C-alpha cells in the first residue's frame, strides 16, 4: 500500500530525492526564519510585553491570555493603592488597583492576589471601562457557571475564587481594547499582638506557601490548615530572611504602590515603625495617626509591615467587640494577661517541671528523620536543669520507658538518657496509642505547683488519629502536649490538632539544620508559660459556637482571642486561669462591648478554618462542606466552596468594535472612594492614553495576545506545591552494575584460563612433561 502510494506521487519523490539544491535552500530558509524568530523573541523579551506563566507571578497582577497555552501577558499595572483603617485591634483593608488592557483586542484577564491567611475577604467591586460591578457571593460551581455564561454572551463579568487560603484569583471577562480596569477588594482581620507589639502585614508578594509566616497572629490558635506556623517569633526580627527576593526585575512592569493607614489605636502608643518600608507619620493625637509612605510610591516587591507599641502601662488588657448580623449577635474578645517581667504586680515564679519525651522510632522515621529526632531530643536534654524531672518513652510497634518513673535531671540520669537516645534506630510499625497512654499517666494529677509537659517527636504516620485525640481529651488532665513534627512532610494535621487538644504547641523541624532553632523556640515556651488552665465561662448569655473550642496556654505577651455567636444580649464573659502560679480572673461585662463592623465575618472565617481542619479526620466531610458553605454564604465570604461573582447586566457592545479613541471615564459612583484613593487621577489617565496611542506597542501586544482571547482555563497557580518523594529504586542500577561486574569477572576468568593454557602448552612443548589433562 505504502509503496504504491509513493509511486503514485512521483513529483513529491522527485522534489525530495533528486534536487538537493532545493533542500539546501529550504534549510537556509528555515535557518533564517529561526534566527528571525529568536531575534523577535529576544526583542519581545527586551521590550515590555513579556510572556509569563502563573508560577512567575509573585505579586498581584492582571494576566492576559497569550497565543502560547499556559502563558500570559502581564498587563501593565498603573497603580495600586492600599487604604487601611485600624480601629483598636481590628483592621479593614481596601486594596484598589488600576489596570489597563493595552492590546487592540478584547481580553479576559486573571488577577492573582495574595491575602493574609485569616483575612475575611468579603467585598469585590470592579470598574471595567465605564461599568461598575459589585460581586455577589455564590456557591463556587454556580458562580463559575454564571461567569462562563456571561463571558460567552459577551457580557463583562468577574469571578473571585480562593485558590489557596492565602491566594485568590479574580477572572475578568470581556475587557475592551484600551480599557482601564479597576479592582477593589476589601478584607478584614485582627491586628497581631505579641509581647506588647501590635503589628499588621499587608501582603503584596505571593510568597511560596512553605515559608513560615513572619507575623504570628494570636488568632492562629485554630490554625488547621496543617501549616507549622504557630510558633512565636518577633514579627520584624528576621524579616529580610523571610521575605523572598523578587525574581522579576522588569523595569517596564512597574508596580507602584501608594498607601495610607488610619490608625486609631484606642490607647496611647509609641514606636510606630515599619520594618519593610520608610514611612511618614502624621500624628493626630496620642492615640491616632495617619501613615503614608515616605517616598509616596514604592514598587510592590515586598510585603508592607507596620508595628506600634502601647505606651508604658497603657496597653489594653481587654477588648470586646460585638456586631448584630440578622438575628445573631457576634462577639470578639481579645484579652492580654499581665506580663510578670514587666508588670510589678505579678512576680515571676520558677515553676518546677516534669517533662516526658516521647520519641517515635518506627520504620517511617528511617533515614534523616530519626537523625533529626535524635538530635532534637539530645538538645532538649541539654536544656534540662537539675530540679526538672524527666523520662523518655520510645515506641515503634513496641514501647519502652527509659526509667520506671520520672527522674531528676542530674548528670548521671542525663548521661544514661543520652546514651539511650544515641542508640535509637528506626524500624517496625507505629503504635502510638500505647506510648501516648503511658505518657499521660500522671502520678500526682492534682499537683498544681508543678508543670507536666509531654513532648512528642514524631512524623505522625498513623491511621488512628481519632482514637488518639479521644485519648488526649479523656486523659490529658493537667499534662500539656507539645508536638514536634519531624521530616519534610509530617502529618501536621495530626500534630497541630493534638497540640491543640493537649493545650500545647506544634513545632515543625524539617531538616537537621532547623533542629537548633525549632528546639530553642519550643524551650522558651516550655520554660515560660504565663497563663495556664485558661477557661472561659459565659454568664447569663447563650454563647454558642465558640472558637477556639479549647483555650490554649498563653506564653509571654500573647493575647487570647475568642470569637463566639451569641443568642441574646447582656451577660458576662468570665476568663479564669493560673497566672504564674496564682489564680487569675477577669470578668468582662458584655454590654460594655463596642460595636464593631465585620465581627460576624471574623467569627465566620475562624469557624470555616475549624471545619476545614476537621475534614481530614471526619468521614462525614460532606456535612462539614455543608457547614462551610452555609457559613460562607451567610457571611458573604470567599472560601474554598464559595466565590464572588459579578455580571454586568447592561448589554455590552459586540466584540470586535473599534474602541481605540474611546474616552476613559472619570466619574465615580456615589459611595466609592476612588477619588480619595487616587488623588491624582488625571496624570494616570494621560499616561494611559499615551500608551494606547503607541501603535508599535499595541502591535507587540497583538502578536502576543491570543486571537481567541477570552477563552481561558481556570487559573491554576503554580506554587511550590507539595514535595514529591523519590520515585525509583536502585534495583535496575544494581542489576546492571552487578552484571557488568560479573562480566568483568568472567572475562578475567577467561583471560587467566587462556593464559594458563597457553603457558602450560608452552612449558609442555619445552619440557615435554606429560599433560595434567589426561
Amino acid at each position, binding site marked *: 500500500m505504502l509503496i504504491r502510494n509513493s509511486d503514485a506521487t512521483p513529483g513529491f519523490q522527485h522534489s525530495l530525492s533528486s534536487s538537493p539544491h532545493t533542500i539546501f535552500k529550504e534549510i537556509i530558509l528555515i535557518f533564517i526564519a529561526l534566527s528571525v524568530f529568536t531575534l523577535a523573541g529576544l526583542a519581545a523579551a527586551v521590550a515590555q510585553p513579556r510572556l509569563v506563566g502563573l508560577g512567575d507571578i509573585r505579586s498581584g497582577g492582571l494576566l492576559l491570555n497569550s497565543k502560547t497555552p499556559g502563558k500570559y501577558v502581564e498587563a501593565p499595572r498603573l497603580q495600586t493603592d492600599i487604604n487601611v483603617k485600624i480601629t483598636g485591634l481590628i483592621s479593614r483593608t481596601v486594596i484598589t488597583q488600576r489596570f489597563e488592557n493595552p492590546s487592540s483586542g478584547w481580553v479576559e484577564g486573571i488577577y492573582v492576589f495574595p491575602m493574609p491567611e485569616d483575612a475575611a475577604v468579603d467585598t469585590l467591586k470592579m470598574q471595567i471601562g465605564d461599568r461598575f460591578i459589585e460581586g455577589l457571593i455564590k456557591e463556587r460551581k454556580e458562580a463559575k457557571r454564571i461567569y462562563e455564561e456571561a463571558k460567552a454572551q459577551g457580557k463583562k463579568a468577574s469571578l473571585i475564587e480562593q485558590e489557596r487560603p492565602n491566594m485568590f484569583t479574580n477572572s475578568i471577562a470581556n475587557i475592551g481594547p484600551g480599557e482601564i480596569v479597576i479592582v477593589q477588594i476589601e478584607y478584614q482581620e485582627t491586628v497581631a499582638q505579641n509581647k506588647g507589639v501590635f503589628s499588621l502585614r499587608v501582603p503584596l508578594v505571593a510568597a511560596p506557601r512553605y515559608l513560615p509566616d513572619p507575623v504570628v497572629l494570636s488568632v492562629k490558635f485554630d490554625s488547621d490548615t496543617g501549616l507549622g506556623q504557630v510558633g512565636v517569633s518577633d514579627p520584624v526580627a528576621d524579616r529580610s530572611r523571610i521575605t523572598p527576593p523578587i525574581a522579576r526585575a522588569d523595569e517596564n512592569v512597574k508596580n507602584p504602590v501608594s498607601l495610607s493607614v488610619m490608625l486609631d489605636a484606642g490607647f496611647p502608643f509609641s514606636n510606630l515603625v515599619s520594618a519593610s518600608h520608610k514611612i511618614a507619620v502624621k500624628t493626630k493625637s496620642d492615640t491616632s495617626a495617619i501613615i503614608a509612605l515616605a517616598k509616596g510610591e514604592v514598587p510592590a516587591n515586598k510585603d508592607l509591615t507596620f508595628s506600634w507599641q502601647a505606651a508604658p502601662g497603657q496597653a489594653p488588657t481587654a477588648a470586646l467587640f460585638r456586631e448584630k448580623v440578622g438575628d445573631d449577635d457576634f462577639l470578639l474578645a481579645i484579652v492580654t494577661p499581665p506580663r510578670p517581667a514587666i508588670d510589678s504586680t505579678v512576680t515571676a515564679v520558677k515553676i518546677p517541671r516534669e517533662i516526658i519525651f516521647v520519641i517515635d522510632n518506627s520504620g517511617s522515621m528511617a533515614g534523616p528523620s530519626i537523625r533529626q529526632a535524635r538530635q532534637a531530643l539530645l538538645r532538649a536534654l541539654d536544656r534540662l536543669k537539675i530540679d526538672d524531672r524527666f523520662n523518655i518513652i520510645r515506641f515503634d510497634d513496641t514501647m519502652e520507658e527509659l526509667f520506671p518513673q520520672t527522674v531528676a535531671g542530674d548528670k548521671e540520669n542525663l548521661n544514661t538518657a543520652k546514651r539511650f537516645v544515641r542508640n535509637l534506630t528506626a524500624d517496625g510499625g507505629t503504635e502510638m496509642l500505647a506510648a501516648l497512654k503511658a505518657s499521660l499517666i500522671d502520678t500526682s494529677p492534682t499537683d498544681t505547683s508543678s508543670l507536666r509537659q509531654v513532648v512528642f517527636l514524631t512524623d505522625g504516620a498513623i491511621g488512628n488519629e481519632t482514637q488518639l485525640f479521644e485519648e488526649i481529651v479523656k486523659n490529658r488532665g493537667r499534662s500539656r502536649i507539645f508536638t514536634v513534627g519531624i521530616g519534610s512532610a509530617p502529618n501536621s494535621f495530626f500534630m497541630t490538632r493534638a497540640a491543640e487538644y493537649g493545650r500545647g504547641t506544634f513545632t515543625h523541624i524539617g531538616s537537621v539544620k532547623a533542629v537548633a532553632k525549632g528546639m530553642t523556640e519550643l524551650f522558651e515556651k516550655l520554660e515560660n508559660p504565663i497563663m495556664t488552665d485558661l477557661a472561659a465561662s459565659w454568664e447569663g448569655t447563650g454563647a454558642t459556637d465558640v472558637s477556639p473550642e479549647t483555650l490554649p496556654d498563653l506564653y509571654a505577651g500573647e493575647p487570647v482571642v475568642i470569637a463566639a455567636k451569641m443568642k441574646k444580649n447582656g451577660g458576662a464573659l468570665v476568663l479564669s486561669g493560673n497566672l504564674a502560679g496564682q489564680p487569675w480572673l477577669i470578668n468582662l461585662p458584655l454590654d460594655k462591648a463596642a460595636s464593631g463592623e465585620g465581627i460576624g465575618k471574623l467569627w465566620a472565617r475562624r469557624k470555616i478554618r475549624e471545619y476545614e481542619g476537621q475534614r481530614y479526620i471526619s468521614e462525614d466531610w460532606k456535612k462539614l462542606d455543608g457547614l462551610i458553605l452555609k457559613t460562607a454564604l451567610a457571611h458573604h465570604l470567599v472560601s474554598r466552596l464559595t466565590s464572588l461573582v459579578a455580571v454586568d447586566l447592561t448589554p455590552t457592545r459586540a466584540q470586535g468594535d473599534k474602541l481605540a479613541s474611546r474616552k476613559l471615564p472619570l466619574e465615580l459612583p456615589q459611595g466609592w472612594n476612588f477619588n480619595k484613593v487616587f488623588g491624582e487621577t488625571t496624570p494616570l489617565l494621560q499616561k494611559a492614553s499615551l500608551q494606547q496611542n503607541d501603535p508599535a506597542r499595541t502591535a507587540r501586544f497583538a502578536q502576543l495576545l491570543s486571537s481567541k482571547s477570552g477563552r481561558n482555563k481556570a487559573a491554576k497557580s*503554580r506554587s511550590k506545591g507539595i514535595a514529591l518523594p523519590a520515585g525509583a529504586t*536502585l534495583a535496575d542500577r544494581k542489576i546492571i552494575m552487578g552484571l557488568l561486574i560479573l562480566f568483568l569477572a568472567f572475562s578475567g576468568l577467561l583471560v587467566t584460563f587462556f593464559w594458563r593454557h597457553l603457558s602450560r602448552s608452552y612449558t609442555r612443548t619445552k619440557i615435554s612433561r606429560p599433560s595434567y589433562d589426561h
Partner: protein
Amino acid sequence: MTTKNKSLIQRLQQTSIPQRLVAVILIATAITGFSLVGQGLYIKAKAVLAQVLLERAWSRALAGEDAAKAWPWADTWPVAKISLPRIKQKAIVLNNASGEAMAFGPGLVAGTPLPGRPGTSVISGHRDTHFEFLRNVRQGDTIEVMTRTDKRITYKVDYMEVVDASASGIEPNAPGEKLALVTCWPFDDKNPGPLRYVVYASPYKIASGQPVIKPGLISFAR
C-alpha cells in the same frame, strides 16, 4: 591421585602467589557481581511479593479491619486500590510514601487527602516497579480507585507533566477531588534524579457503596 581430584584449596596451594591473588580477585569480583544482581532482583521480587500479600491485607481492610497489615511487623497498610483497565494494571496503595513503604507498593503522599476526599490526592510509586506502567498511560485513560469506604471512583487522565520534585506545583488543598500519580522521570534513567513524572486525573464517576467506617463527627467536650 591426579590433580583433577584435588580440592580447590589444594590446587590453590600449589599455585604461585600472583596466581592466587588473581584467583581471589576473580572470586571476589564474581561474588560482588552476584550479590548486586541478587540485591536488584530482591528489590523486584519484594515489590511483586509484597503486592500479593497486600492484596490479602486489602480484602481484610475491606472487611472492616482498621490498618490491616500485610505482615505483622509492617509499618504501613493498604488504603486504596488503583487499576487502569486499558493497560490492565493494578496496585494496592499504601498509607504513606516513605522509602520503606514504597518498596512494597505505591504510597499516598503525606499531607494529601485520600482519593475521593476534597483536595488533590498524590500517589507516588517507583518507576521501575509498581509504577512502571505510568509510561503507558495516555490522556483520557480511566483510572479506577477503590477506597476503604467501598467507594469506587473513576478518574479520567487530564494530562501528564514533568516537574521538579521540590517544586511540583501540586496543591493538596486545591479545589476538586483530583488525583495525581507520580513517579521518577526519565523512565529509563538508572540514577535517582530531581525530576518527577505526574499524571493528573479528575473524577467523573463516583459509585458509593455501603461505608465500612461509621460516619460521624467526633465531638469533644469544651
